[in-house]
């Protein structure tokens, strides 16, 4: 008998309802018979559809238990696997969480399904006002695996792309750090044997658990090192040409002039006759990325004195660009 075509959401909903309303569990053939839309129970394609529907339900968070009974598997969802009936979110809480979902909006249905799920927790049906604040975070494949690894104190392994190229890493994870739109894993690099930061957007593979639970000793060098919240912040000391570099000047304040000998270095100091043209200034405390962009933008009129790594970074980029088409100038 040919079954009338049944929409997939209805078919999967009916499958869920049957699994929720059985004490003993139901076999695959039985389920494919009572739930309209599968067609012939012995059809390989119908069986694949059934298995995909079970996966759909699991991906939605429903715990589908499979038991072997009398040489056949039986399926059920225990009602106790659902959140307690009184699990409610207030309107404000739902609004807050819907804004959080917006940070991941990538056009896929996954986040829209989450929005619908969160609305199911609501105590009323007041539609939340659209927020005027928006942001979207960089993709973070494997974020839930890393969060799970943090909770269970388990190391994770992944391939990572750095300035030196691609490499395999094994890390005892401590914390996920947010910096603007970027997400980082802060943890102990078990190969380099030191704390490191890893940016999720540079993961080449989805992280996987590297060892069983409780296998990473919590004492000694692997004990969590608190992440310094000022890690990304700098206050550069610079020489700024008078009357120039409006962006750098607006975000820095003058420093007293020092004798070059007191400064301990002569290399970066201008000639005595030029010193009146340049002013020592200290930048406001801000993210290093922001300062890097400002200083590259106004590189002709700003010389970085501190931190030395920033001076070297700016210098390297300028020297690289200056060497472009050198042969054309010869």
């Amino acid at each position, binding site marked *: 008998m040919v079954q009338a075509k049944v929409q997939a959401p209805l078919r999967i909903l009916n499958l869920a309802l049957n699994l929720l309303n059985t004490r003993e569990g139901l076999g695959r053939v039985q389920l494919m018979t009572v739930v309209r839309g599968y067609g012939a129970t012995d059809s390989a394609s119908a069986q694949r559809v059934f298995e995909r529907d079970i996966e759909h339900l699991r991906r939605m968070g429903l715990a589908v238990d499979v038991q072997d009974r009398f040489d056949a598997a039986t399926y059920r969802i225990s009602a106790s696997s659902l959140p307690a009936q009184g699990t409610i979110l207030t309107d404000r809480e739902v609004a807050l969480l819907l804004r959080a979902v917006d940070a991941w909006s990538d056009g896929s249905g996954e986040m829209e399904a989450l929005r619908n*799920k969160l609305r*199911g927790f609501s105590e009323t049906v007041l539609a939340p006002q659209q927020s005027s604040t928006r942001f979207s975070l960089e993709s973070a494949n494997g974020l839930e695996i890393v969060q799970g690894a943090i*909770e269970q104190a388990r190391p994770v392994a992944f391939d990572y792309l750095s300035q030196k190229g691609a490499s395999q890493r094994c890390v005892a994870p401590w914390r996920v750090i947010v910096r603007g739109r970027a997400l980082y894993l802060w943890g102990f690099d078990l190969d380099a044997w030191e704390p490191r930061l890893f940016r999720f957007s540079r993961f080449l593979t989805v992280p996987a658990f590297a060892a069983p639970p409780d296998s990473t000793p919590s004492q000694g060098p692997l004990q969590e090192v608190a992440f310094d919240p000022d890690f990304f912040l700098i206050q550069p000391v610079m020489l700024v040409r008078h009357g120039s570099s409006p962006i750098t000047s607006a975000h820095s304040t003058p420093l007293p002039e020092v004798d070059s000998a007191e400064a301990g270095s002569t290399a970066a100091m201008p000639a005595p006759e030029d010193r009146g043209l340049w002013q020592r200034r200290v930048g406001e405390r801000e993210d290093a990325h922001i300062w890097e962009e400002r200083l590259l933008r106004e590189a002709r009129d700003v010389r970085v004195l501190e931190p030395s790594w920033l001076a070297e970074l700016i210098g390297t980029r300028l020297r690289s660009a200056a060497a472009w088409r050198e042969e054309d100038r010869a």
Partner: protein
Amino acid sequence: MPEPSTTILARLISMVRIIDAQPGISVAELAQFFGRPEKRIRADIDLLDNAGVGDLLPGRTFEIDYDLYTEQGLLTLRSPLNLSAPLPITEREFARLVTALQAMAPTLTDTEQQILPQTLSTLLAARSRMQASTADGDSLATLTPAISEATRAKVAAVQKALTDGTVVVFDYVNGAGRHSHRTVSPSALVLERDGWVMTGYCHTAESERTFRLDRTTNLSEAQAALMSAVDATSSSQGREPGETVKVTLHSGAAWALRESPAATVEEGPAGRLLATYQVWDPTWMRTELLALAPYVEDVSPHHYLEETAVYARQALEETLQGEDTGSA
């Protein structure tokens, strides 16, 4: 574009719970709540009316009061068939929600900060029971993003002005280096790749403008007569297409291009990478080229390469002059 099955399914299950908890709710209320047209909600009701357990005999379906529904557009059901609880939150969903809340921390109002621990505790309780967790709402609520105090204060001031319907005043240096003092009624605050960006009606320019918060100084909220709210969604002006700039880089740039603002990044011949940018500000493009300088092999249009090289040489000549003539 048709909705994915999981999206519809999540809505159907949530609707069952809501109708069961609030009998007599209307189709219009559900449409507004779920942000879908009434026609879609009615289609969902039709699906629910055909759903049930086993052979769908009486007592084995939701038994929606169809007369009440068709005559008055109101919804009740006799039994939720064990679907009276919300769907569990998966590990993947939980991780994304907590991380996003961490990133949002600077923009939360005082009220939202207060409800955050309880919200996270409820989410923890609603997690799919696949594995045990040591997390708790209070500790999760203390996670904050890495952000400077200066930026945090600016974001808070703009956020407050958005909430209160007031203005912000600040000094501004634009990309061309021009100084100005601005009074702006903000309509939106967006975190972009280059940082926080505020859009609003600039009373100085008497038009809609966009400002990077990292280019502002002395920013504060100011009391002002309430201006008519600028609808952020309708005020966004169409942007003219920028100039297309193509940059050829060697393969070592792969890691740096991961977060690049390039419109596209493709593999080229001999392992090279081809990044295409849309450019509205030549100084911005020069800055991007300098940031990628160790890897750049060619740029089209060529004048970007030449001008950036000249700029870099001038910057280095200033340094060299200082080294040559400076003395202990």
